[in-house]
């Protein structure tokens, strides 16, 4: 029962991440954030070469990842076991990518984008949630 709530919370967190990534995607596609403005940060990060992977905006890939996490977490909350199993490697991969992006912002680009940092914080919370779900699963098994 507790694990269900953890997955439900993960689904809600993923929705927040999806909204953030969707906003960044729209900003990227319409060029709003890419344009340089007096407010530093997002324009520097989103206009860098790292903001696009194989012609696809990184934010769009992030939105797809968050949507996948939302779907899997929701299915796991409804008792689909395989969804819980697939969720863990996906969130770990997203967390590692977030770490890499923070490194790029801090040491390569030299500017931080608050929406990118928010996304990294969401991914960190998702990692905590998935680890908690695993722990609950183990304790349920041992009982």
């Amino acid at each position, binding site marked *: 029962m507790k694990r269900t709530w953890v997955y439900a919370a993960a689904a809600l967190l993923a*929705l927040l991440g*999806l909204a953030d990534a*969707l906003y960044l*995607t*729209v900003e990227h*596609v*319409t*060029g*709003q954030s*890419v*344009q*340089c*403005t*007096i*407010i*530093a940060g997002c*324009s*520097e990060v989103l*206009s*860098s070469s790292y903001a696009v992977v194989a012609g696809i905006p990184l934010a769009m890939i992030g*939105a797809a990842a968050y*949507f996948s996490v*939302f*779907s899997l977490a*929701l*299915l796991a*909350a*409804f008792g*689909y076991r395989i969804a819980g199993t697939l969720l863990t490697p996906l969130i770990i991969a997203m967390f590692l990518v977030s770490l890499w992006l923070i490194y790029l912002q801090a040491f390569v680009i030299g500017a931080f984008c608050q929406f990118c940092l928010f996304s990294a914080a969401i991914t960190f919370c998702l990692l905590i949630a998935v680890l908690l779900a695993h722990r609950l699963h183990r304790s349920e098994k041992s009982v």
Partner: protein
Amino acid sequence: MVATSFAHWLPLWLPQLETLMKRILPFIIILAVLGVTLGSAWYLTRPIPSSSTAVGSQQPAPPASSSPTSGSRSSGAQAPTPQPVANRGVPGAEPAHVLGPATAPAHIEEFGDFECPPCGMFHPILEQMHKEFGDRLRITFREFPLVPTHKHALAAASAAEAAGMQGKFWEMHALLYEHQKEWKTQFDVRPIFEGYAQQIGIDVERFKRDRASDTVSQRIFLDGKRGHSLGVQGTPTVFLNGREVPFQSLMAAEQLRVLIQREIDSAAKQK
């Protein structure tokens, strides 16, 4: 009769219906979220009709009498006083830095910052447009250094203006954009810009004096003032015949080409 039989069977169906709903419900939610996400993305990125992005109304090409030599590269100190490109806002520095004749049916007025990466990306696209359209396109560059976001933007704008005082604005403009990645990370850019001045063959000592002069500061100030009066908030901001070009059209040569051609065609029809 039907109602009685339904009432009879309903209790038997309820547990199965509940199980079925429980199985289907997450998929319904997932599809709903997918629908909302794609719908929002489509709504927020849909193309906006050009009339709604207009900053100034469409203006006719300036009179032929003020035209400089066709396709010439004219710059601040040398060019005759050109007509203002857009018909709204306060005037910028005069004479402005212009490429192409005043009779050109399409006018691009760019507000740029030499340190801004998207401006650097836009530079080759605009060069390409200049080559393709020749005398049919007039380009005006306005200084809009984003200070203090870009620490060397003002120094770069001053360098370009100082080169302009010796008639080599566009040469310095090209060097600054082409080597943007090299100088923007440096602590002191002044010797680099002096190197560029030497490279384009201008008097370096005069260049050093001019870039610190009030004339140069005043020109940058006036261009910035014009930008603010037109509602410019970021760079590059581009006006085509007085109307602001959406940013996404600037980064794709094919889109910008279509917009310029449309202006040329519309001017030809009016004749």
